C-alpha cells in the first residue's frame, strides 16, 4: 500500500465520514484560527526557562481541529518533510481521541512534541493548507495541534512504548545525538537492531539541548523522548567522540555492521573583521552553550557567562533570535538585532521575530558591522556599522544588500554575539577516510538512500545539508534507517 492509499483508507473509516458530516464545511471555514496562549511579555523577558507558548487548552484544540476540512487531497501533507498524516491526527483530536492522535504523529515523526514547537510550520505544512492556498484565510494551526497531542500523551503518563517483537542483535552505531541521530535510532531499534548512540558532549540531544533555549523548547520535553528510546533499548555513550576516542576501525572491531553519521553543523562562522577577538564578542554557539548546556546564569553553575547591558546580536536567523532573547532575559537593557538585509529577508521564524519584539528587542536592519573597538582591558566598547540598502536579487532570490557609500555610524556595546551561520563539523569527514565531502564540508550522500561513499556509512541532518531544520534532520534519519535496514536484510 502506498502512503497515499494508506491515508485514503484511514480517511474512509466510518467515524471519519460521520465526523466530516457532523459540521458543515462552510461553518468550519468561518471559524477564526486559535491564538496560542502566551506568557506575558513583561514577565517572560526576565524568565530564562519559562516557556513562552503555553500550549492550547483542550477546548481550543478541539475547536481548532474542527476547522480542518479533512480534505480528500490534503495538500498540507506535501508541505511536511516527513509526511505526517495530518488530517488523521487532527480528526482524532476533534473526536477527543488524543492518544490516537499522538500515535498517528509517531508513525512518521520521532519527536512530535519537539516539532510542534520548533518546526517553521508557516513555511511548511501550514503554508500548503487549503485555507491559505484557496480560501484566503489563515491556515489550520497544524503545529499547535501537533504539540497539543504530543503534550497530552506525555502528561497522561501513557506514552506508548512499542513492543519490539524480534531483536536481531545486529549492532549499529550512531554518531551524534541530535534529531537526525535520535530519529534514526528510534526507527532502527523498532526494527530490532541493537543501537548505540555516541555523543561527544556530556548531554544527549544535540542542538535541541545546547542550542535552542528552554523558553522555546524545555529540556524535559527532549528528555522524555530520549527516555522512550532508552526504554526501547537504545544505548547512549556520552563523552565519546567518534574519530577521536574511538575510530572507524574500532567500530568495526567492536562488531558494528552499520554507522549513521548525524554529527551536525556545529562550527560557528565569524565575519573576520577587525576587533572580532575582543573580550565580550562571541559566537551564538558559545553564548547559548554556556547558558543552555552549562546553565551558566545559575549561580550554582561553575561556568561563567558575561551579562551584557548593551548587547548586539549580528544575524537574522533562529539562532540570532534565540541569542538576543536570551540576552534580554539575562538583564540586557538594550538587546538589538543587527542584520544586513531587511526584515522581510530574515530567515528566522515569523513567530520568533514577533516574540522578540514583544520582549523589547530592537531591530537594526540594513546595517552591517565593519569593525569593533575596545577599552584598555581589551573589552569591546563600540562597533562601527555600515548602512545598507537593497539592490538586485542574488542567487538565493533575495535582494542583495549593498553598502551605502559613506553612511556609517558607531554604536556603543558591551557584548556582541555573532550569529552569521555555522559550518559542518569536519571531524568525521577527516576521521573516516574515503568519505566524499563538498567544498562546503558537507558529506556527500545518495539522496534516496542517504548512503555515503563508504558501504556501511549513512549520513543525514546538518552534516549533509549544512544548517537546516529539526524536521529535515529527522526525516533524513528515518530515510537512512529504512534504507540501511533494507541493505542489511538484503545481505542475509
Amino acid at each position, binding site marked *: 500500500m502506498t502512503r497515499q492509499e494508506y491515508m485514503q483508507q484511514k480517511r474512509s473509516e466510518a467515524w471519519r465520514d460521520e465526523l466530516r458530516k457532523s459540521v458543515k464545511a462552510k461553518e468550519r471555514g468561518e471559524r477564526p484560527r486559535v491564538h496560542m496562549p502566551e506568557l506575558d511579555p513583561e514577565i517572560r523577558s526576565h524568565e530564562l526557562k519559562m516557556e513562552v507558548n503555553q500550549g492550547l487548552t483542550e477546548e481550543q484544540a478541539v475547536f481548532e481541529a474542527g476547522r480542518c476540512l479533512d480534505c480528500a487531497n490534503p495538500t498540507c501533507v506535501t508541505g511536511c518533510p516527513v509526511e505526517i498524516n495530518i488530517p488523521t491526527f487532527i480528526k482524532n483530536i476533534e473526536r477527543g481521541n488524543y492518544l490516537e492522535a499522538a500515535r498517528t504523529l509517531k508513525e512518521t515523526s520521532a519527536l512530535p512534541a519537539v516539532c510542534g514547537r520548533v518546526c517553521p510550520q508557516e513555511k511548511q505544512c501550514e503554508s500548503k493548507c487549503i485555507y491559505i492556498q484557496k480560501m484566503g484565510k489563515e491556515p489550520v494551526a497544524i503545529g499547535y495541534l501537533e504539540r497539543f497531542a504530543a503534550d497530552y500523551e506525555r502528561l497522561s503518563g501513557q506514552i506508548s512504548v512499542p513492543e519490539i517483537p524480534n531483536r536481531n542483535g545486529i549492532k549499529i552505531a550512531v554518531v551524534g545525538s541530535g534529531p537526525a541521530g535520535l530519529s534514526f535510532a528510534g526507527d532502527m531499534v523498532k526494527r530490532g537492531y541493537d543501537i548505540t548512540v555516541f555523543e*561527544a558532549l556530556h548531554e544527549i540531544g544535540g542542538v535541541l539541548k545546547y542550542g535552542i533555549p528552554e523558553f522555546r523548547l524545555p529540556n524535559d520535553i527532549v528528555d522524555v523522548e530520549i527516555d522512550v528510546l532508552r526504554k526501547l533499548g537504545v544505548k547512549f555513550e*556520552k563523552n565519546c567522540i567518534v574519530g577521536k*576516542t574511538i575510530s572507524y576501525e574500532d567500530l568495526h572491531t567492536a562488531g558494528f555492521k552499520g554507522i549513521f553519521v548525524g554529527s551536525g553543523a556545529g562550527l*560557528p562562522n565569524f565575519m*573576520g573583521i577587525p576587533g572580532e577577538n575582543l573580550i565580550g564578542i*562571541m559566537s551564538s554557539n558559545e553564548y547559548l*552553550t554556556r547558558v543552555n548546556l*552549562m546553565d551558566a546564569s545559575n549561580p550554582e553553575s561553575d*561556568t561563567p557567562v558575561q551579562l551584557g547591558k548593551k548587547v548586539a546580536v549580528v544575524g537574522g536567523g533562529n539562532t540570532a533570535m534565540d541569542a538576543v532573547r536570551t540576552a534580554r532575559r539575562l538583564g540586557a537593557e538594550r538587546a538589538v538585532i543587527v542584520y544586513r538585509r531587511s526584515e522581510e529577508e530574515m530567515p528566522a521564524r515569523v513567530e520568533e521575530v514577533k516574540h522578540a519584539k514583544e520582549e523589547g528587542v530592537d531591530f537594526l536592519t540594513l546595517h552591517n558591522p565593519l569593525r569593533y573597538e575596545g577599552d584598555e582591558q*581589551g573589552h569591546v566598547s563600540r562597533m562601527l556599522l555600515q548602512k545598507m540598502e537593497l539592490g538586485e536579487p542574488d542567487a538565493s532570490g533575495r535582494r542583495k544588500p549593498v553598502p551605502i557609500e559613506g553612511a556609517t555610524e558607531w554604536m556603543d556595546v558591551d557584548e556582541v554575539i555573532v550569529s552569521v551561520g555555522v559550518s559542518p563539523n569536519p571531524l568525521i569527514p577527516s576521521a573516516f577516510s574515503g568519505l566524499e565531502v563538498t567544498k562546503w564540508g558537507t558529506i556527500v550522500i545518495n539522496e534516496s538512500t542517504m548512503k555515503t561513499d563508504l558501504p556501511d556509512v549513512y549520513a543525514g541532518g546538518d552534516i549533509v545539508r549544512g544548517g537546516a531544520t529539526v524536521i529535515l534532520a529527522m526525516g533524513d534519519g528515518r530515510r537512512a534507517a529504512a534504507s540501511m535496514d533494507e541493505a542489511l536484510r538484503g545481505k542475509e
Partner: protein
Amino acid sequence: MNKIVEKEHFSANVIKLVVEAPLIARSRKAGHFVIVKVGEKGERVPLTIAEADVEKGTITLVIQTVGVSTNKLCALEVGDSITDLVGPLGRATHIENFGTVVCAGGGVGVAPMLPIIEAMKKAGNRVVSVLAARSKDLIILEEQVRKHSDEVIIMTDDGSYGQKGLVTDGVEAVINREKVDLCVTIGPAIMMKFVSLLTKKYNVPTMASLNTIMVDGTGMCGACRITVDGKVRFVCVDGPEFDAHKVDFDEMLLRQRAYK
C-alpha cells in the same frame, strides 16, 4: 564516570591524578588533551594528558589549582570519580628527528611538556629541557624529565634551586652554546611570549602549546580562538600547538582574562 586510581601531591598546588580512561589511554598521542567536568554544575576544563598506560587503561593528569574547577578536581580522592571526561582532543604534536630540541617549560607547563620530551627523545633528538619556576618547591616532574632528556637545566626566579634567572636565560645559554633546531615552549602565556621573542631573534623555529579558555574543546564554540599569522584559529581543533613566532600573544593574554 572515570575513577581516580592514584593521587600524588607534587607541591602545595600541583597535583597528579591517575584516572581510569582505557579508550583515551589507547588513542592518545603526545600533545593531546582531555576536557573534564566535576559535578553536575561543573565547568568543562581542558587538561593535557601527561602520561598514559595502555595496559592499565589509565591516563595521568597534572593539575595546578588556580580557581574553582581545578580546586574541585584536586579535592577528589582515590576511589572518587570524575563526572565527565572526554578526549583525546587537539592535534598531536608533530614529532620527528629535528636534531637538537630545547624544551622550555614553566610551572605546570612541564606536565604537558613531559610526553613531548619523551616522544622527541624516542624519535632520536638530542633533548635539552629547561625547567623554570618561581622557586624550588614549584619545580615539578624533574625526575621524569631527566629520564628522557640528554640534559636538564633548572632555572628559578629566586635562585633557590638550579640557576637563578628566567626560563629565557636558560634557553639563550643553550642557543649561544650549540645549534638548536627546534624549541618547544609550554607555560604561562607571558613566558611563552618571551621565549618566542628570544628564539625569533636567533631564528630558532619554535612551537608553543596554547592554553586559552575553552568550553567544548571540539570546535563548536570559538571561545578558544586566537590570531596566528593574521588568521583566526581555534586552539582546540587547530592546535593546541602553533608556530610561536606567528602567535599574537598579546591578544591571547587579554583573552585569558575574559572572565576575571
